[in-house]
């Protein structure tokens, strides 16, 4: 059957075709779609879950693989940072069941966060990394990755980048393989499964290095990396990996117009970037006079080309990042191939074939992202801003440390509330640091519910133990929202059909021993402001749980139940001062000719504009 699917779904189908027993991960753009699609399927023999964070997911997956079963573990590139302590350790130990880690990188940062190249992690832990060049290959290579993992007895990475992870193609969907019902292995072997002792560790390290070399041999036998030597010797050799391979043909078609000699072009298209195929690279180096390396982000393959070139006495040009032709920042396209061809072959392809004229783009209006209409976070930012004013403090004197998720959007106008962002859970430690550094004014931190579960809890425990003077506001919208509404431990049971136990933040925080703990409704502005202001004046750790469901999810639920309230503009009271817009920035507020109007399709009846208006021009009414 042919279907239009994303690369993320392709990973899921490829894993099902390998008969996975378990799939787990933590959401993160652009990797989210893999587990998300598995969760919508009826898979009686496969356990699928969103775990609390990537390390938890990875540890769970190691257990499955050590017990001899097949497991898929997924994460975005930032997640590899979180899981890495375990990843390298499991790589040392190896595994019996097929273990595939799917990681999605984001060159060009479509989704924010560091533009890191996860291949670096695979290199550091001597793990093979496969890089499909198309959505079709994402299926077949994922299935193969399980075979490879079992053959070398170690975990294997599969890496996609954003365009393949989130892009759609029409491809043939494979049949799922039956899930093994074999008994779980219980191998009691401390030499393999512990790290206690130098001998144990160094033996494991040697085994690990051998496993990667073995993977290289198997990948070569399988013919994953394709070398097409030109008809004539002494031309240009192009090395590319993953999706970048797809831009070569298009660029060559352009170069045809400028007299390129196709017989002098050789191409090595990699589907396994780690280990780099030394054999094929050597062949290419020996055959060609010039080498062009096309790889996004870090020049990993290129470095190996330099090493091999040196070993083989190659004196020709190597075009890539190290000679300064390409940047280590951003994603590649046909343009990059053309620039490389031009440089290597002096083709005189005019710049106009590939150079951007961005004059039109520069005229476009800036459109900073902000929270949705009706978003509960809006109420929390407004209450923080009001509390600062209430205490007669200046905004530039009160630092609000931010965290990952929709909760960071308070950094933008009109709120300008949140100051910074590091990584999941970091806001709490940051706040503690600012307090120790001697900041005299109250130090605040904000964090979302999923982020609190992911990485915030250890930091809160630290702040409690050391009695740090901080105010923590947990912005609990009951979902992992920014990544597209995933369930987390705090999502109430009546909001999904899964048999999960609810873990309530309102019970965790007092149980940790926090004495100053409040719960607020961010839409109750007066109470929320009072509580935040009070907390800002007390010593020690203060925690405020600001709870209200994400507006998108609440609307989905509400639209089933029918609207109960409506917000109306009292026209005779409105003088179009636009105060409501300048404080809330809500997109449902649209200035009319003489008075403000409300877009009924966008208004979620949160009442924030009502609370802001000082002319009683906005009223919330019951629907009769």
């Amino acid at each position, binding site marked *: 059957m042919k279907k239009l699917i994303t690369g993320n779904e392709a990973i899921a189908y490829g894993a099902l075709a390998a008969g996975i027993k378990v799939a787990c991960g933590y959401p993160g753009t652009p990797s989210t779609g893999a587990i998300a699609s598995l969760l919508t399927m009826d898979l009686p023999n496969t356990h699928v879950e969103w775990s609390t964070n990537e390390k938890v997911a990875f540890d769970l997956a190691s257990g499955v693989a050590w017990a001899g079963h097949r497991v898929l573990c997924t994460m975005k590139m930032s997640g590899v940072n979180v899981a890495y302590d375990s990843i390298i350790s499991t790589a040392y130990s190896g595994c019996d069941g097929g273990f595939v880690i799917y990681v999605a990188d984001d060159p060009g940062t479509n989704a924010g966060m560091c533009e890191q190249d996860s291949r670096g992690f695979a290199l550091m832990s001597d793990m093979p990394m496969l890089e499909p060049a198309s959505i079709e290959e994402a299926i077949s290579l994922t299935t193969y990755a399980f075979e490879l993992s079992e053959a070398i007895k170690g975990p294997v990475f599969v890496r996609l980048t954003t365009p393949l992870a989130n892009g*759609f193609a029409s491809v043939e969907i494979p049949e799922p393989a039956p899930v093994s019902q074999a008994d779980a292995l219980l191998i009691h072997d401390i030499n393999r499964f512990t790290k206690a002792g130098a001998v144990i560790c160094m033996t494991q390290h040697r085994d690990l290095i051998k496993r990667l070399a073995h993977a290289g041999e198997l990948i070569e036998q399988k013919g994953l990396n394709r070398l097409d030597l030109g008809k004539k010797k002494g031309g240009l050799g192009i090395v590319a990996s993953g999706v970048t391979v797809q831009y070569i043909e298009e660029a060559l078609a352009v170069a045809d117009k400028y007299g390129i000699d196709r017989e002098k072009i050789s191409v090595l298209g990699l589907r396994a970037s780690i280990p780099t195929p030394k054999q094929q690279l050597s062949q290419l180096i020996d055959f060609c006079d010039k080498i062009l390396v096309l790889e996004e982000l870090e020049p990993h393959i290129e470095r190996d080309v330099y090493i091999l070139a040196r070993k083989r006495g190659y004196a020709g040009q190597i075009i890539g990042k190290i000679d300064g032709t390409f940047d280590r920042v951003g994603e590649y396209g046909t343009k990059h191939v053309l620039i490389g061809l031009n440089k290597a072959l002096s083709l005189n392809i005019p710049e106009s074939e*590939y150079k951007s004229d961005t004059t039109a783009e520069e005229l476009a209006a800036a459109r900073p992202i902000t929270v949705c209409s009706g978003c509960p976070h809006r109420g929390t930012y407004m209450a923080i801003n009001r509390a600062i004013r209430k205490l007669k403090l200046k905004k530039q004197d009160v630092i609000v440390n931010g965290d990952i998720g929709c909760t960071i959007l308070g950094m933008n*106008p009109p709120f300008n509330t949140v100051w910074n962002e590091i990584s999941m859970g970091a806001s709490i430690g940051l706040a503690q640091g600012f307090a120790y550094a001697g900041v005299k004014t109250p130090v605040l931190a904000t964090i979302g519910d999923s982020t609190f579960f992911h990485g915030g809890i250890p930091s809160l425990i630290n702040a409690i133990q050391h009695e740090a003077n901080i105010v923590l506001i947990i912005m609990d919208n009951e979902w992992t929202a920014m990544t597209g509404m995933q369930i987390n431990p705090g999502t109430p049971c009546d909001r999904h059909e899964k048999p999960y136990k609810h873990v309530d933040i309102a019970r965790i925080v007092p149980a940790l021993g926090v004495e100053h703990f409040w719960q607020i409704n961010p839409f109750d502005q007066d109470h929320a402001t009072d509580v935040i202001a009070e907390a800002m004046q007390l010593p020690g750790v203060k925690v405020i749980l600001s709870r209200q469901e994400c507006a998108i999810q609440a609307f989905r639920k509400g639209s089933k139940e029918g609207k109960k309230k409506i917000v109306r503009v009292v026209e005779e009271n409105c003088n179009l001062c636009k105060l409501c817009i300048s404080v809330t920035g809500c997109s449902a507020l649209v200035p009319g000719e003489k008075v403000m109007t409300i877009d009924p399709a966008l208004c979620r009846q949160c009442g924030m504009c009502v609370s802001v208006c000082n002319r009683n021009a906005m009223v919330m009414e019951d629907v009769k």
Partner: protein
Amino acid sequence: MNLNIYLVGVGGQGILTIGEILSSAAMEKDLPVFFYPSKGMAQRGGFVKAQLQIGKKNVGPNIIEKGSDIVFAMETSEALKAVRFAKPGGTFLLLANFWAPTDVILGKASYPELDKVIGEIQKSGAKLVLISDKDLPEYEGKKVADNIFMLGAAMKHSVLNKLFDSADIDRIVQNRWKRASASNHFAFQAGMDYQPQLIAGE
């Protein structure tokens, strides 16, 4: 026949839906499709773009500059971001909606004049088909879906009709939302019959 299509707008306008409908149409004809939507995060109201390539088996997801046969732009300012991807001789459909960012509403930031945007589009060498948001007809007292209307106009004024039958697109549109099938059929036909405000560069 290969077709490269570039779509831009603001989240919530239904710009991705146009790409999805055309992807389904291509799949029905067993043509290779690569559809790459890039929307930001969960929030509505941010810049959204999508790239659709039909007819080529192995393609890079990003369309080369000056490489789009058809551009659909559903927001006036955001249209500027597609200009460099329009192919000289291709078709650039602009639905002149204005979704002003908050700072523009408050008079703190500027928003490009429509004439300026039109001028930039014309410089690309593509044929401009300008659709005024005021021209959208009503069906049973409600404005029709602007994206479906625009798709109808594209069927009439671009090379889309060389690849697809309007009857097929109309059927896919109707089947997609059963409850709105009559109004969407109407929107699509009205788009086909629409006399654009401006067709420039032919």
